[in-house]
């Protein structure tokens, strides 16, 4: 099928970017969205032009590398799907597709569709862990954990750190990402000793990184490839208030 692409091109962090229009004639329904970009890039290279840079790695929805704003939707139209898992059969012959990078001051553009998401790493560094040195752990079955609790913790632990929540949030807030990690560890006994410090540190770092505040738009949950619930944001707030109160 025939697809027209409006792609954001930006040569570097400090130069202005613009949209370029490309058209591809031989896109297959069974291609993934990134494979369509491979096709585009091969074409551009053959024409002596610079290919579009974009992040990708696992191409199966788990590493969180890929990040495209597709027709104004983070990771495109399909729910619970990362860009790399999106297939061209979601589109029609003749469609025009706008592709932009994640946009947030905390995620500066590096080049074309590649952005810098290291703010997420710094948030985790601020407290998204259990302080346990290697070798000091007790037997794994020492603490039984209710199956349902473990499952609930898993739902939050499933975050792939892609940043779609930030990209789609009208406020460019990182609350879902932070809420997911806070909730994952708050639900487990292992997270207990550091639960106060963790939430205060992580929320503090989120603020420093320049993300917006959360106005409860809930768009983040809709675009999250892992479908993480904004109940995690509510839990983060509870944890935070408990932590500063006492």
């Amino acid at each position: 099928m025939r697809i027209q692409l409006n792609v954001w091109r930006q040569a570097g962090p400090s130069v202005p970017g613009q949209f370029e229009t490309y058209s591809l004639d031989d896109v297959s329904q069974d291609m993934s969205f990134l494979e369509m970009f491979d096709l585009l890039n091969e074409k551009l290279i053959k024409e002596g032009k610079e290919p579009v840079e974009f992040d990708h790695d696992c191409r199966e929805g788990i590493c969180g590398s890929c990040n495209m704003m597709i027709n104004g939707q983070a990771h495109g139209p399909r729910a619970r799907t990362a860009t790399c898992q999106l297939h061209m059969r979601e589109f029609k012959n003749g469609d025009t597709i706008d592709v932009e990078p994640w946009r947030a001051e905390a995620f500066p553009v590096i080049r074309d569709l590649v952005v810098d998401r290291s703010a997420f790493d710094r948030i985790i560094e601020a407290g998204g862990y259990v302080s346990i040195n290697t070798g000091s752990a007790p037997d794994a079955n020492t603490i039984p954990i209710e199956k349902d609790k473990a499952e609930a913790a898993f739902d939050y632990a499933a975050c792939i750190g892609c940043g779609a929540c930030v990209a789609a949030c009208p406020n460019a807030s990182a609350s879902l990402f932070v809420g997911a990690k806070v909730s994952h560890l708050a639900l487990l006994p292992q997270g207990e000793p550091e639960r106060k410090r963790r939430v205060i540190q992580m929320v503090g770092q989120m603020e420093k990184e320049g993300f917006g505040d959360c106005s409860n738009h809930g768009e983040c949950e809709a675009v999250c490839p892992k479908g993480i619930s904004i109940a995690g944001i509510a839990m983060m707030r509870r944890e935070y208030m408990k932590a500063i109160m006492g």
Partner: protein
Amino acid sequence: MKTDTVQKASAIRSLFSSPVGKKVLTGITGLGLTLFVLMHVSGNLSYFKSSDAYNTYSHFLLSLGPLLYAVELGLVAFFAVHAVQGIRIFLGKRKARAHGYKTYASKGKPSMQSLSSRSMIVTGILLLLFLLIHLKTFKYGAYYETIVDGVPMRDLARLLTETFQSPFYTFGYVAIMVLLGIHLRHGFWSAFQSLGAMNPRLTPVVYGLGVAIALIVAVGFLVLPLWIFFTGGNA
């Protein structure tokens, strides 16, 4: 290495300025204001019973004296904190995404994004402007007197009746009340989420309740000016 901002940070600063605290405050104040408008709207409805009933009601409130002042002070504080935090959140968000998207579209369910959620700042600021005019019109408006059951009191019913003869006031009010409904449609649910009280089971229930309250408040308010305008109101 990052310093431990943490432990030391005062709870007060966290409450006013952290991303969580800001929302907890808009949430608490928002719910407080919701409670106020619910009472206000039910008070207003006594006008339909009779002007005397309405005047007696407001006279009763006034007679509370210091208690009323305390409540009024609280109201001012709530409005102020609510508006200030709301505006800060808005400014923060503009800074967080200085460069917007060419195209932007919601992905639909389970997103809670709506016209309401995206226009909170607009509806909010219009409410603030409305409030200033509103206080000037009524609270600090013309002072008529009347006597009900031998007790002299302010005839607010008359002021209402007179004010809403004007199409400008009537339809202006109607418009504002619609905005208030829009504000509350997202606001009510949102406040509970801000206070950390929501989970996936409760959310649809509370959101529904919020829509109902928004409707009740908006309709409850706007029938009064419309009724006065079209029927002339209580004689």
